[in-house]
């Protein structure tokens, strides 16, 4: 397998959107897991990394929207900033994967993820401060809600997403980024 067809990328994007609905439901049966570990971020990031920026963007926008409509999570009040955050995650993760080439796929994934998570949080914070909660959202609130409270989630994402990428490559479900000579 050298390159994925657009149909396969579209279908992977579709399952990632479905996972945006399924994962929080699976996690919410575990006490406090949804709010601390943000499981919905994982499919959005992975979709960007595997399918590219535009499918990542679509997954980030449609995932939370469908989940909110079908399960009530996230609640309406949190939905717009979350859509912005996840859309930027998917978009930036996909863009970074196109430009970062360290010859080690896991290093590419981690670098792309860190940049995507940082840019996503900055854009979501800016959107909240300027649009969704204009005048009420302060710098301290941004740092506490997007970084301090999310530390366990950030660590889990940084562990889980590269592990998933590696497992998918090993299972030949996605093409190897650097095929063995």
């Amino acid at each position, binding site marked *: 397998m050298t390159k994925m067809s657009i149909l396969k990328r579209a279908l992977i994007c579709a*399952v990632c959107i479905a996972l945006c609905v399924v994962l929080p439901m699976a996690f919410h049966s575990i006490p406090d897991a949804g709010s601390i570990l943000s499981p919905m971020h994982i499919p959005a990031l992975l979709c960007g990394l595997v399918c590219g920026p535009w499918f990542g963007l679509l997954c980030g926008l449609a995932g939370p929207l469908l989940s909110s409509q079908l399960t009530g999570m996230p609640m309406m009040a949190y939905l717009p900033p979350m859509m912005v955050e996840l859309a930027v995650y998917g978009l930036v993760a996909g863009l970074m994967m196109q430009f970062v080439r360290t010859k080690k796929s896991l290093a590419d994934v981690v670098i792309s993820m860190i940049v995507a998570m940082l840019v996503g949080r900055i854009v979501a914070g800016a959107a909240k401060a300027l649009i969704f909660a204009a005048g009420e959202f302060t710098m301290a609130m941004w740092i506490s809600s997007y970084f301090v409270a999310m530390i366990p989630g950030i660590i*889990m994402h940084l562990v889980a997403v590269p592990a998933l990428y590696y497992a998918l490559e090993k299972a030949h479900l*996605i093409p190897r980024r650097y095929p063995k000579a």
Partner: protein
Amino acid sequence: MNRSMTGQYVQKDSVLHKMDARAKLLCFILLLVVMLKAKTVFSYGLAAVTLVAVCALSKLSFSALTSTLSRMTTFLIVIFLMNALFFSTQEAIWKWGIFTLSREGIVQGLHVVAHVVLVLVLSNLLTCTTTPIELTTALEVLLKPLKVFRIPVEMIALVLSVALSFIPTLLQEADTIRKAQIARGARFESRNLIEKARSFLPLILPIFLCAFRRADELSLAMEARGYRGAAKRTKKAKIPLKKSDLLALGICSCICAVQFFL
């Protein structure tokens, strides 16, 4: 886990179920404006009467229509109390420390709660009377103007319809995997955060592998059957809007126009 899904299609023989999904989606947008534009007693009256009439037409049970609301009771109470106690410091009815209960705050809280309730019931109506496939096909038609900006509308519709059809299957698989991991000794209930985080990897890894395998198999099957991109797909029949759909659209437009004057 399946029981926690709300707003799923409920099969009934009603006017709303028979309505064309394109017209239904447009009516939904118009009625959404009616619900959100409500500010005075009369405008709330119009919104409520319209919603009750549409609910009656749908023949859906009360529990199906309010399933989302029952899970959001705490959220609605918190929103109301936040507005009632913090919205205004003037004309206080009751004051204690940082809390100021004001008439303005109570009114604002009631406005927010009423808007959320109206919109939630309306969205439930749409999803309970329209199958996901109908909804995505309607979305594809209504988004067609975006093609001017080179947005692949057909591809987006395909992705959404596949995503919707995958949700029940993946939910079932996730539940099976969770139970299997509990049987193997996974400690999801542990209060230790590190232990809890460590127990997630054996849960999400098989779920993702399963989901990606399904996507792989489906793409192979579609390509083998000659699928060559969503843009080249043709429809079996082009169904025009019926008179009843146009009438519904006309009524919703009139209600929306009246709401702007109230």
